[in-house]
């Protein structure tokens, strides 16, 4: 057994060594991510080569079942692959809401037909998904979503508005929370549906962020026809699917806490000894968080984690990432604050500003603390 694992590690290491292009082992920026999709284009040939190599082994989704095209690795082997990839700083070959969020929910709640239809294109990076949860009136209080889906016999007609929909303007499909029973208590009248963003009546409008980028949109639905077969899980019980998916989303976002500050520490003790102290204390937390993340992933993948623990991880990881960017800005001074000029025009400042969203997206820090207090610590509600 352990011999098998040692053998697997050896083979994996050798395989990565010969298949991961050197360029794909360099630190990546948001622009370097490959998101796939109908209009997905590779930034360069190394990215394409890496993606295709990983896909050939099902390793865009290493632990998904092989019957849909996944890698079929058990938790121990999936962990070895993660460790070996991180050892050479290999980039993930594919970034995808389909992989991080929808896939796990479909594997648990989807029908066999839905899995066969949706999972292979996610694994192959052919369809890019976006998340239609938040609305202007439903943020932290997500269960108050007002987008309506009216039953028209063999289909629904969806009307309403979503907001903060990341990459809605680039996505092919959306997974969406809609109200199917307006008379029921708010958590019990929501359904989880999927539809093509090309369906008539869907439109998007990008929103410009403090970072200057526009990764997310307002998304409008105007008499959008959605087939009945696109319901995931039980009618009116979409909240269960929504929460399960959020657990995976939070797990994914918590990985933001894995970044380091080491690159900018040269000469720091002479320039700013207090900053050095702050960084040293940060390094302690960052190292502890890496251990915590490893432990949590092991528990999570083995189905042993408390279902609300992803909230703790998300809170700790995102607050840590914000602290990291504050330190990076502080160490970088005016150079880091530069918005134009140079080769990396404004990259530090943009990354710093982007990090502020970490403790908002996927449920705010305050909401995660509420969840931990109630569901893990069993503190009374008001």
């Amino acid at each position, binding site marked *: 057994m352990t011999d098998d694992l040692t053998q697997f590690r050896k083979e994996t290491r050798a395989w990565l060594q010969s298949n991961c292009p050197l360029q794909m082992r360099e630190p990546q920026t948001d622009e370097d991510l490959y998101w796939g999709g109908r209009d997905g284009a590779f930034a360069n040939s190394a990215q394409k080569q890496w993606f295709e190599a990983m896909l050939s082994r099902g390793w865009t989704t290493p632990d998904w079942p092989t019957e849909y095209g996944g890698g079929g690795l058990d938790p121990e082997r999936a962990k070895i692959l993660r460790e070996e990839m991180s050892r050479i700083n290999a980039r993930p070959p594919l970034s995808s809401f389909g992989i991080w969020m929808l896939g796990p929910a479909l594997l648990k709640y989807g029908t066999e037909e839905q899995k066969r239809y949706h999972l292979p294109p996610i694994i192959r990076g052919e369809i890019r998904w976006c998340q239609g949860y938040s609305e202007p009136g439903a943020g932290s209080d997500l269960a108050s979503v007002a987008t309506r889906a009216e039953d028209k016999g063999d289909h629904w007609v969806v009307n309403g508005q979503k907001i903060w929909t990341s990459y809605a303007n680039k996505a092919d499909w959306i997974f969406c929370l809609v109200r199917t029973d307006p008379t029921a208590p708010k958590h019990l009248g929501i359904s989880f549906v999927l539809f093509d963003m090309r369906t008539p009546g869907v439109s998007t409008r990008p929103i410009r962020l403090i970072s200057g980028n526009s990764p997310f949109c307002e998304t409008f639905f105007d008499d959008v026809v959605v087939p009945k077969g696109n319901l995931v899980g039980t009618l009116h019980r979409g909240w269960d699917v929504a929460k399960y998916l959020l657990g995976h989303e939070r797990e994914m976002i918590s990985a933001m806490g894995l970044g380091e500050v080491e690159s900018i520490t040269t000469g720091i003790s002479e320039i700013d000894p207090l900053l050095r102290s702050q960084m040293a204390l940060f390094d302690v937390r960052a190292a502890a968080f890496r251990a915590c993340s490893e432990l949590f992933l092991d528990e999570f993948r083995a189905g042993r984690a408390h279902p609300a623990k992803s909230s*703790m991880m998300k809170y700790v990881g995102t607050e840590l990432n914000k602290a990291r960017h504050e330190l990076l800005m502080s160490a970088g001074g005016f150079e880091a604050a530069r918005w134009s000029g140079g080769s990396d025009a404004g990259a530090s400042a943009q990354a710093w500003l982007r990090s502020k969203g970490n403790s908002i997206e996927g449920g705010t820090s305050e909401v995660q603390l509420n969840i931990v207090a109630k569901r893990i610590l069993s503190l009374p509600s008001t």
Partner: protein
Amino acid sequence: MPLYHDDEQTMLQDTARGFFDEHAPVSHMRGLRDAKDPAGIAHELWRRCGEMGFTMALIPEEDGGLGLGHVEAGIVQEAIGRNLTPSPLLATAIGGVVALRAATNDLRTEWLPRIAEGVAIVALALEEGSKHAPDQITLKACKHADGFVLNGAKRFVPHAHIADLLIVSARSSPGAEPMLLAVTRETTGITMRTQQLADASLVSDIEFDDTVVEHSNVLVPPRDTGALLEEILNAVRVGAAAELIGLADGAMERTFAYLRDRKQFGVEIGSFQALQHRAAHLYGEVELARAAVLKAQRELDGGSGDRSRHAMVAKAIASQAATLAVQEGVQMHGGIGMTDEHDIGLFMKRARVLAELYGDTNYHAHRLASVNGY
């Protein structure tokens, strides 16, 4: 291998918690304190720790031990922390054992079986000042016909007054490689002054006045003694960190129970969001520290080249998390938390001492920055 405990470790955890919860809960510590017990520990409990195998985790099987690892030793240490049990286990069964099992001479066969049985107690005399500084060794060991003569002092040594064996760091001259000597407490030329710390634990200042130590009492490891000293320190730092996690758990359990029970303004105080968020934040801090300690234990057991770094992280973050746990603990108990009668204050006092023991957060963060190259 997953980082979480395997089935046998989980069983050991149940056994160790069950044992200390039953035989040495906080009232046990309070009893020793109130009786001004001169030993500061219960010898009977120590013997039973031997019977239970708690002293044996790190002792190799050929020396009468269980040949387990730092994960297992830490599980026991955590159970001690939860109950604030006064015990020489950390210095003896973790620090002492790591020191003695590296000895290439008779010290190993002479002492390890007696530690395994819960007979011998070992103290680590490694500090000379009020803050942890194991590299600052001015205790002088001069060559002598039969071995060495020691002159100088060690300070704040836990359990030294009841120890059978003292492991003492010394140097032959300033800047020389450190030496480790295993000296029995009765050796001529040793005087001790024993005092109580805020947590009621007993520590001693030890004077060495022309103390003659024979060659056979010099701890001779296969490689250099400096490396062994680092190994001992890694082990006790991670052990103390495990104890701090147990302590933080004990403090949190009491505090969260109080938040659920205590009513003000007609509702449980735990329904106030200001307290809920602080409680949830605290929980996250302790989970962070728990994982770091587990990771460090694994790295020590695996003999990883990065183990010192992991030990620093574990001790730094565990000290911080436990400190937060007791500060929030006392505050959230209100007036009752300030009373001697309530246990939460005992957790605060013990956390202060343990946070200091073998290096506090700043000490380790500073070292981590240095090894990280800045």
